[in-house]
């Protein structure tokens, strides 16, 4: 009857004694599905060492990548969105804002900061996709406008890092007018001869592409980023055909003449530094 009798003892480790693998020790690339240690991924500036996929990162990470010693002064950190239209869809806009603020720890979809890049001053406005899809509303527009005023006053170059699905629908025409507002301010910056570098990251679409993202003295793309005016789904519906491979990627946009350069994240700071040096010497 040895068939029914367990001769060898089974696994008897109690749950308490089991060794846990710490959460987040490994990073799995969403593109190539290969894994690498998380700390290596972070040291590699959130870029997959296997396939060069640039993970989406937020303003805190970009500031760390760009500014010397991660030191910077945040400009207008306390602006948050009003609800001028008392907008309600399936949820009301006010509670959406509060919820997003809690979830992301951010006030809105853009932070601006003044710091130093290899000893040279730079103001960086960086969008956060984690806040309502990086959508552009009054706060984004106002912060950019104020950052430009700051640059004009102190004669400091400006960089805007775009990462956005476009205008924020819940602010309707107000968000539309942020396109006008930011572009008008950039006209003043341009007239003052102060350099403006636009970095387009994944994704940059809609009203953001159709305003400040495309207006840089230099338009720089991150590798593989989605960059376009209409979203790929809308374009596909319009033409009723599948989209060509690589459509609306940074490489596609560069090929069609709308980007000056594609720069990997690890080369971002050295490139910026050299450009700032050449603009200012």
């Amino acid at each position: 009857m040895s068939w029914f009798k367990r001769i060898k003892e089974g696994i008897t480790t109690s749950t308490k004694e089991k060794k846990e693998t710490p959460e987040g020790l490994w990073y799995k690339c969403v593109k190539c599905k290969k894994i690498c240690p998380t700390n290596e991924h972070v040291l590699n500036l959130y870029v997959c060492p296997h396939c060069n996929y640039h993970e989406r990162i937020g303003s805190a990470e970009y500031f760390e990548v760009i500014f010397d010693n991660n030191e910077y002064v945040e400009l207008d950190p306390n602006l948050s969105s009003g609800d001028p239209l008392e907008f309600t869809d399936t949820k009301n806009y006010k509670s959406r804002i509060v919820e997003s603020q809690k979830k992301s720890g951010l006030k809105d979809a853009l932070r601006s900061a003044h710091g130093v890049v290899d000893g040279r001053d730079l103001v960086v406005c960086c969008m956060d996709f984690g806040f309502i899809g990086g959508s552009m509303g009054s706060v984004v527009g106002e912060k950019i406008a104020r950052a430009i005023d700051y640059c004009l006053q102190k004669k400091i170059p400006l960089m805007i890092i775009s990462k956005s699905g476009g205008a924020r629908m819940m602010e309707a025409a107000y968000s539309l007018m942020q396109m006008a507002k930011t572009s008008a301010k950039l006209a003043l910056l341009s007239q003052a001869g102060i350099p403006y570098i636009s970095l387009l990251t994944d994704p940059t679409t809609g009203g953001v592409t159709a305003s400040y993202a495309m207006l840089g003295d230099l338009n720089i793309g991150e590798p593989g980023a989605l960059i376009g005016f209409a979203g790929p789904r809308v374009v596909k519906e319009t033409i009723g055909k599948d989209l060509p491979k690589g459509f609306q990627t940074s490489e596609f946009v560069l090929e069609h003449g709308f980007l000056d350069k594609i720069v990997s994240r690890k080369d971002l700071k050295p490139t910026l530094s050299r450009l700032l040096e050449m603009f200012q010497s």
Partner: protein
Amino acid sequence: MNYLDFEKPIAELIEQKEKMANAAQKSGVDVTKTLEELDGKIADKRKEIFGKLTPWQRVQVSRHPDRPYTLAYIEALTAGSFIELHGDRTVKDDKAMVGGLGLIDGHTVMLIGQQKGNNTKMRQYRNFGMPNPEGYRKALRLMKMAEKFNKPIITFIDTPGAYPGLEAEERGQGEAIARNLLEMSKLRVPVICIVIGEGASGGALGIGIGDRVLMLENTWYSVISPESCSSILWRSWNEKERAAEALKLTPEDMKQHGLVDGIIPEPLGGAHTSPEEIFATVKAEILKHLGELSPVNADERITRRIDKFCKMGVVVEG
């Protein structure tokens, strides 16, 4: 004449009147009095319906197939003096964006606008009023020309949006619109923008940076069409009425929020019921605003224009 669904009661009365007039002509009976009565009824019904249009109905009127489009305004305003100019000097001539020089009461002006078609064939020819990048670049080329020769610019906005096609993306739709926003904000000549139909998003704004931005009474202007807004926020096409309300896209709402400068009244029942009347009103408005803008020094005018757009937005500090 085409009638919208909510205009049915008016259409019925008009039909009744026409039948009676026809019958009277055949039989020779004098029905003048009854016809006058019917005219009164029609006017009352119009007042009743158009006095309380919902935002969605306003959107419907703005798209009325009989509504005058840009070239109709231009022809009427310039009394036959208009010379259309074509092409962006780079790719091609965009038929969804028209422009050229004309005289309004002896003043040379540059007139530019999105153009829709009046029938199926023309609608296709005009790409339903949806410009490609070359349309925005043609508009900018003409604006720069106007600036060079110191002529004021009038733009007519009537578009369901910039064309979201494959070639449009290849040729930089986003860049074309962005460039116009930047360049228009520093044009040294007076710029008046008038929404005569649909003002949809960046496609509208691309010719919409002016010293004066005016809306006709039965038009809308917003970041997205009510249908698309409904499909994105409610995940269904059926909430367009609610979306139209939520977007606050009517001229009254836009004026109240300081996002446009003025509203131009339309004849009762919409611009298409009496084109001559609306052309005259628009002409008077243009002349009035040009009169106010022309004496202002160019630098001062640009500062005011930029300041106006920079004030738009509601943020909470703290």
